[in-house]
Each structure stands twice: as structure tokens, then as C-alpha cells.
């Protein structure tokens, strides 16, 4: 075990992936000698050479188009989109190409070697264009996997699994936690399962579901609720697509109450999908309406960022409202 932050864990995962498989190639804007604007790819070019870790021109649709072709050819393409806010020029390549490559060819061809890494989320005074959480757009696209880690240990194990998964994976990195989150991380090579949620805290009265940067927020809310005598079960979804319905449903069978929280806007956010699926599975077990604590249906703000964000206090209020329903 070693103590490190999330960026170091991601850097180590990329290093291990490139070291253990010569067909792993990392690229994107400023990814090469500079090591990425967040330094996630530090030293990879020095270690593995310019052919395997390099800068691309500033063109997201080109980066993902190139990555699709490289993956179809048989390499493991790990492309970085510098901010999730800038992934939209590549939307067509991801949604119409990556996601459908295997299906449309009847499995003659696939881009299973593709992983797209991209920092997402707010809380860093980034305004509209350095704060978005676009995971729900991609969760609406069969053929993709969508993964979001909550801490360094998770980031390393999930990223290694994503790179080696035989399907295209979007890996959303919570940039607010890049340096803020640190912890013990195994130094060796390990993977954590995609598509499986994790119960990070057991509890009896209410289930709290979140992912990525929102996990520490709901954990804090759970601690605050504990002072009111409310026992919360906290679930990290980890994968948005496919997502672990069984894990959430099992918990709600037990607690009868559910609060889901994400930074993205309310309408059409992924909490809506979870709420619909869980009310269908757990209808007769529910003691109160499923609640969503999310961003507002606005573009991401700047000066009033704290007011916009679904913080621990807002989650706590939702917990109280649910328990006192």
C-alpha cells in the first residue's frame, strides 16, 4: 500500500496498463511531454516513447475518431478529452460509432479496446465550461460503459478494468477530487469490477445512492443524519452503464427509503432512471417517495456555485424529509 492522491493513482494505472500490454496507447491534448493539464499522464512519454504516448491536435472529434480506428485495428486506445465539457464535438464519434461498432458489423469488428478518460464535475470555480457532468447523455447509449470512481483506490482499479474491458468505456474522473482525495492504494496491478455497485456504509433507515465526486458529499450527509439518529446505507454506483440494480434494490428492500444525488441537472439526470427502476422493483417496500438531490435545471453557474451544488446540507434535508414523510 502507498498513500497517494487520485491523480497519482490514475497515473499509476496508466503506467501499469502500458507496461503490461504494449498495445496500450495514450493520447490527447497536452498528454505527451507535458503529461496532461492535470498531470495524469506524467512521465508516460519518457517511459514508453512518443509513439505510445503523444499530443494530438486540438480536435476532440478527431481524437475519438482516431481512437475508434486504432481500437478497431486491435490496439488499446486510451484517449483523453481534456474536460468533459469539451466532449461534445466527439459526440457523433462516441454515440454513432464507438457505441455501435460491434452491433452494426454483427461482431465482425469492434472498438472494445477504447477507453475515453475525461475530467468532469464542479466545485472548482469553473463556470459553465469546466464543471459539467454529462454522464446521463452517454448512459442513454447502448454499447457504451460509463464508469465514475470516487477515490484513488477505486480510480486505479476501475481504470485498469476499463482499459482491459472488451467494450468501449467512458471513464469520468471527478477533477475536484484529483488532489483533494487521497488514501491508501495497492501498488501492484489490480482491477475492480465494472457494472457493480459497492455498499460503502451499511445502514438500516434509508439508502443514499451517488457516484464519483458526489460520494464524499452523501457520506458527510450520512454522518450528519447519524446525529439525528438516522442510520443511512451509502451506495457508490461506480458504473452508470450498465448499473447495478440488484445492489440498490436489495438495499431499498431493507430500508424502504431512497435518496439519489448527482451534480448534473435534475431533468433527465441519471437519478430519474434509478428512481423509475427502483419504484418498479420495490414499490410495496417504499415508505416514502424516492427523492433526488441534484443540480438545478440551469447551465452550471460560477459565483453562486455553492448555492447550485447539491451539498451535504441539501442531502441531509432530503434524508429528514424522507424519514419524516
Amino acid at each position: 500500500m502507498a498513500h497517494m492522491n487520485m491523480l497519482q493513482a490514475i497515473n499509476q494505472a496508466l503506467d501499469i496498463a502500458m507496461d503490461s500490454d504494449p498495445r496500450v496507447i495514450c493520447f490527447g491534448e497536452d498528454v505527451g511531454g507535458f503529461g496532461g493539464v492535470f498531470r495524469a499522464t506524467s512521465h508516460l512519454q519518457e517511459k514508453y516513447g512518443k509513439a505510445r504516448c503523444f499530443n494530438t491536435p486540438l480536435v476532440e472529434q478527431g481524437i475519438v475518431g482516431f481512437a475508434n480506428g486504432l481500437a478497431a485495428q486491435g490496439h488499446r486506445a486510451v484517449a483523453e478529452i481534456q474536460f468533459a465539457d469539451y466532449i461534445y464535438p466527439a459526440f457523433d464519434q462516441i454515440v454513432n460509432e464507438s457505441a455501435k461498432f460491434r452491433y452494426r458489423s454483427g461482431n465482425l469488428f469492434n472498438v472494445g479496446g477504447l477507453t475515453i478518460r475525461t475530467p468532469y464535475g464542479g466545485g472548482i470555480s469553473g463556470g459553465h465550461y469546466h464543471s459539467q457532468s454529462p454522464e446521463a447523455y452517454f448512459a442513454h447509449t447502448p454499447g457504451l460503459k460509463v464508469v465514475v470512481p470516487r477515490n484513488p483506490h477505486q480510480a486505479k482499479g476501475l481504470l485498469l478494468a476499463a482499459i482491459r474491458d472488451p467494450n468501449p468505456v467512458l471513464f469520468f474522473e471527478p477533477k475536484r477530487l484529483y488532489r483533494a482525495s487521497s488514501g491508501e492504494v495497492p501498488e501492484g496491478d489490480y482491477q475492480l469490477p465494472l457494472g457493480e455497485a459497492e455498499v460503502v456504509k451499511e445502514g438500516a433507515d434509508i439508502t443514499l445512492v451517488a457516484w464519483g465526486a458526489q460520494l464524499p458529499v452523501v457520506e458527510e450527509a450520512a454522518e450528519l443524519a447519524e446525529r439525528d439518529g438516522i442510520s443511512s446505507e451509502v451506495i457508490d454506483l461506480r458504473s452508470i452503464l450498465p448499473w447495478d440494480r440488484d445492489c440498490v434494490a436489495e438495499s431499498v428492500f431493507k430500508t424502504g427509503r431512497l435518496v439519489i444525488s448527482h451534480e448534473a441537472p435534475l431533468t433527465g439526470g441519471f437519478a430519474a432512471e434509478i428512481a423509475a427502476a427502483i419504484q418498479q422493483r420495490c414499490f410495496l417496500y417504499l415508505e416514502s417517495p424516492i427523492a433526488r438531490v441534484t443540480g438545478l435545471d440551469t447551465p452550471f453557474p460560477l459565483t453562486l456555485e455553492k448555492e447550485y451544488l447539491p451539498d451535504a446540507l441539501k442531502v441531509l434535508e432530503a434524508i429528514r424529509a424522507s424519514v419524516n414523510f
Partner: protein
Amino acid sequence: MTRDTSSVHVPHFMTGDEWQVPTFALLRQDGSLHDGAEAPELTHDKALRIYRAMRFTRVLDERMLAAQRQGRLSFYLQSTGEEATVVGATAALQDDDMIMAQYREQGALAYRGFSIDEFMNQLFGNALDYGKGRQMPIHYGSAEYHYMTISSPLATQIPQAVGYAYGQKLDGEGRCTITFFGEGAASEGDFHAALNMASVHQVPVIFLCRNNGYAISTPVVEQFAADGIAPRAFGYRMHVIRVDGNDLLAVYQATLAARRLAVEENKPVLIEAMTYRLAAHSSSDDPSGYRSQKEEAAWREKDPLARMRHWLERQGWWDDDEERRLEEQLRDEMLAAMKRAERQPPPPLASLVSDVYDEVPAALAEQLAVLEAHVRRYPEEYPRGAAGLDAGAETAAGGQ
């Protein structure tokens, strides 16, 4: 930083009109060579393989358009008039070089040996279609013949070809990728992204633009203001050649040279083939609304098949009898293959959910189970699904 340039001290604007791109041509319509032109080395066998693929494509297009008009097929898309561009370029490659086409390149598959039955199974979307009946007719794909499955969105294959070729360069086995697209698709952002990346990363890729005059109904004068597509290469410092796309020998020789640049020197090449879409855009289109019969007739005089045939006749390699025999044989074989394809069952119901991922996720398996129960309840409402109810366990598990 830009390259070192001399400075000027009064405003000096440039338009690119200083650069004229000539058209490389070898063959006259009567099959003779232009003055000073020299035919590329082409063996008797290879020349006939090329011509048969061109003729195959022409006959396939005629037969399948007719089948579409009879209501036997939902959709079709001809490549009439562009056979020399597509077959000529393909013939200049190694048979295991990758092809990433747009959708009007059936000639490339015909040249590589994709069988009539393979064409028909895709066109009819039956249980033997490699694409499992998931895409509209003409969306062919073949791993065996290194032909990437067609995708309808335009130009997406162009940056993919750059990535594919980059992988080939890393593998170091001397292979390259060619990507075909129309002059309309070259307006897409993906085209520009791809050319720039290929040039920056020195990738063994050939960009072959079929400039056939129209993007559905939009003529080139409403598509771009410059002198065609070729000058765009200058902006990316890429090798470029413009070629008479109805001249098989010229397309062949240009692509042969382009392949050498790509594979031996890692220099990407843009080829602009000047040709004409003699047929409609697709079976859903009627060109009489946007172009004159006179214009079409003028291009029919430049038919690439006739030109190649005249050249073959001058070599003493082809005559009227052989032409008639080949046409009859192709028509008979296609008719029989069409009947075989029509008799095949549809893909099994379970193939709806396979290949979305490498394995069927649990939630999707549940959705299939619900659908199967529904189809069992109302089989007369879903005849295709009902026919394939019990055939699908294997397909649902993935694989080909």
C-alpha cells in the same frame, strides 16, 4: 510556429488561386493513350480481374435497382459511373490493406472476391447476413476482405482510417489504410480533423475523394468555393494528386504511387478522383429535379467501363463474345443468388440484443425475455420475430 517566411510591409492577401492542381490522365475514351502517356504495368490476369469487378458492379447495380423497383428490396444505392475510381484504387493496394469506405464502393468488395451470395445476404438482411440484418441494404462489411462495415453517418470513417493506419504503422508490417468519401462528405469536420492528424502523425493512409459532382442534389458549386478538394491538402502539407476518376489506368497508377509514399515513407496522400455519379444518389432519389439530361448524356460519353473495355480490346485481351458471356453469366448468377437470399429466414429474435456488448448484460437479457413472451403471445403480429424465436440462443450469446 509557422515555417520561416519572408515578411512584407504592406498588406498582402492570398487566395490559393496561385496553386493549380492538374488532372492526371492516361486513357482517352477510345482506349488509346494520351500523347506522352505510358500505361502502368498490368498483367493480363490482373487487368481482367479489374474489368470483371467493374462489370460485376455495373450488373449488380442494374439488377438490384430493378429488384428495388419491384418491391423486393427496401433500398439500393448504385455506383454507376464511379467503377474505375473504386476498383482502380483497390487494385493498386495489397489485398490485406484496410478499406474504410463511405457506401458507394461495392466495386472494392467485388474486386477482392466478396461473393454474390455475400452481397445478397446483406441486401436482404437475412439470417446469413454478417451484419445480422441490422443495417440498411449496401452496408456491407467483411473481416476476411479487410473491408470495414459501412456506417451511414458521413465522414466518420475518415479519422478512423487515420487511427487504423497509425496502428498498422506501429505493427510495422507494411500495411496501409485507404478511406473513400465523396466531395460532399469532405465538408464535414471529421475530414479536416483526419487530414490534419494524419499529416501531423505521419500515418500510412490514403484519402480517396470521389468527386462525383453532387451530394444528393447539391452541386459542387454550392458545396465549396475552392478548386475542388485537392487544394485542401496544401493547408495540411500533405501530398496530393488529382486524377481522372473515369480512367482506370490513371487511378491505378496514382494509387500505386500513393501507397508507396504511405507505406515506405509514412506520408499520407490525398487523391481527388474527378468522376460523375451517373445514377441517382440512391433508390429514393430522382436526379431530374436538379440536373439536366444533357449533362448526364455528356458524362455517359465518358463511361469508365467502356473506356477500360476499349483499352483491353486494344491489348487483344477482350472481345464482344467475352463481354456477352460475362454479362449473361453474372445476370444468371445474381438472379439465382437473389432467390436463395430471399428464401433465407430472418435473423433470430435473440440477435436483437447480441453484440451490443461482448456479452449480453443481465438487464438486456430481461428485456429480451419480456419481448419473447410478448411475441409468443401474438405470433401473427410479429411473423419475423416468431419465426426466429427458438433459433437464437446461440446468437444471443454473441459471436458470429
